[in-house]
């Protein structure tokens, strides 16, 4: 005050406003995001024999098992769709969401070392996770489309619909939903560790509350609302409708998923930003 006033580039203070999200900084560090994505991808298949093929193994085997148990033994309806195809769409989409949420939910724990040594907008890390999972998702989509081609060739009864144009939106919703929920969980687990145990287990259970292994149409009416409460239900139903022509696409459920996603994303970013400032001392 006494001397000439100076313009500072930035000011470090104990608490910033809750809504000071520093998104400009995130944009400035966008190159770092790509570096992380590249690192994840490259380090994933280095020194493995099958390399990126591993991306296929998991959905293929899960589909086989589901076809055997839920299709073969339990005889659950698949809306007259070929069973493997029905499960494949559900599994691929659900996997993307669950990968996003589980990986982001340990961001602070996994990166405690690097976060403790250098500053960059912490949000870069979860964003890079969601993006590198997208690569994986894309590879699995190729598998799914190949399978669709195979079944179409054999004259199976399904067809793509106009809803395919909504697919980019669906992917975005899944990414942001996984990100938002993951951010909330990671922020909470830095303080109260026990939550971490819940995540893997909870995600697994959550899968059964949405329409991965059964179509919404076959659910008893009294459970339908409950199933629709899972924000992933609208998304999975919509992608099944888009790719296979069966599934209940209503603007109401999709709208619900969108609102749910946005709320959890905003909440997630705010909590994450608040935790990020002190987590180095608490982790």
């Amino acid at each position, binding site marked *: 005050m006494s001397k000439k006033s*100076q313009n500072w580039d930035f000011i470090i203070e*104990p608490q910033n406003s809750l809504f000071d999200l520093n998104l400009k900084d995130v944009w400035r560090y966008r*190159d770092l995001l790509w570096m*992380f994505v590249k690192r994840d991808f490259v380090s994933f298949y*280095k020194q493995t024999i099958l390399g990126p093929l591993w991306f296929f193994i998991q959905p293929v085997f899960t589909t086989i098992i589901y076809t055997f148990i839920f299709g073969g033994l339990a005889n659950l309806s698949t809306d007259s769709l070929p069973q493997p195809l029905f499960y494949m769409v559900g599994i691929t989409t659900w996997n993307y969401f669950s990968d996003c949420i589980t990986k982001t939910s340990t961001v602070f724990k996994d990166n405690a070392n690097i976060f*403790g040594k250098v*500053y960059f907008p912490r949000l870069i890390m979860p964003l890079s996770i969601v993006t590198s999972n997208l690569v994986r998702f894309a590879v699995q989509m190729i598998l799914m489309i190949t399978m669709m081609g195979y079944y179409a060739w054999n004259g199976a009864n399904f067809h793509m619909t106009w809803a395919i144009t909504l697919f980019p939106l669906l992917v975005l919703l899944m990414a942001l939903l996984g990100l938002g929920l993951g951010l909330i969980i990671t922020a909470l687990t830095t303080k109260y560790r026990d939550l971490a145990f819940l995540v893997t287990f909870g995600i697994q259970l959550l899968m059964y509350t949405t329409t991965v292994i059964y179509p919404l149409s076959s659910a008893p009416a009294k459970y339908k609302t409950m199933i629709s409460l899972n924000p992933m239900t609208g998304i999975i139903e919509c992608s099944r409708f888009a790719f296979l022509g069966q599934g209940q696409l209503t603007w109401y459920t999709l709208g619900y998923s969108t609102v749910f996603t946005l709320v959890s994303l905003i909440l997630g970013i705010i909590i994450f930003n608040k935790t990020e400032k002190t987590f*180095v001392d608490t982790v």
Partner: protein
Amino acid sequence: MASAIKVENLSKIYRLGEIGTGTISRDLERFFKMKILKQEDPFLRIGEANDRATKGASDIVYSLKDINFEIEQGDAVGIIGRNGAGKSTLLKILSRVTSPTTGKINIKGRVASLLEVGTGFHPELTGRENIYLNGAILGMRKKEIDRNFDEIVDFSGVERYIDTPVKRYSSGMYVRLAFAVAAHLESEILIVDEVLAVGDAEFQKKCLGKMNDVSKTSGRTILFVSHNMASIQNLCQSCIFLTKGEINHIGETKEVINKYLSNQLSNTLKLSEIEERKGNKDLIFINGEIIGVNTDNLDSVESFSDFTISLEFKLINQLKISNFKIEIGINNNMGDRVAWISSNNIISHFDLLISNKITFLVKNCPLAPGDYTCSIFSEINNNISDWLQNVLPFAIVEKDYYNTGKSLPAGQGNILLNYSII
């Protein structure tokens, strides 16, 4: 000149002994008092100075307390202090890795900080890929790295292995590459923690040279933490000396370093005040002093110079002394005995009954630079009379004994040899 960094009333508290913030109830209490009743943070008031040796009444300590300073653009400033003085915390706050509890820091320009060498290096990736990754982590844009790539590789001297995964690198190569990336950051402020302790002497010199370059020719501001007074003196014009989280002294480097060296061990108790001792107390030590011949400072001695250890004592019971011993063991900071002197080994005319002070003169002390303590021991008529462990701390400070201008690497043994190549 304009300021680059201005720190006002900076404090940082830590809670001891607990992982995480502790309990939900405490969080709630804090939240309730601060947000609802608009009171001060209830856990801030009971803080105390960060003194590791004594067990405090509260488990909340100040890691930094009311720090104020201003650094001008283009200055190279050293930060010194003992372990736990808050140096690293200060750097962490300045690098935005953690946030302060109270206070405010204004910064002009981009900050690049090097708290650790090779943060974020991925072992599976090649040197080339890691340069880009590490550069981006430190805040460089891709085109910036492209522009400096050749220079980075050149500086690191690992050109041949640039497409080899870094897990195959020797630790030296690893450090070289990592420092090379950081050294080429185009930021206005560079914050460097004690990272040069790793790597060989030649590379240390190269890094210091590079930092010197950075501060003198390109007018960038440097903050540098080190325990090596020689490199601080080489690089920095001014210095900040922290003790227990507070600024002890701030000013011109040489003056601050002297202050540091003389202060370093002066917070120790007089021997007579130490309670933890063994023996029948026929004789008790009441005071001790270590004086270096070439340094004016108490308790600090230049290596390869002479020093004296004097012990004042008191005979409690007037007894007939048929034999006695006074011994001093010198321990390094790991607690290992590195040397031992005893009145019993040499012939002298010293007599306990005549004098109340015994002084040992040590010539050409070959101990390596570092912190040491003494264990003092006395025996009269074959009975232990007084025995104190790990008292009289002193420092051996580095002197350019070999006349090379290079500083000696730490961790290379406890003694220096007088040698030459013939």
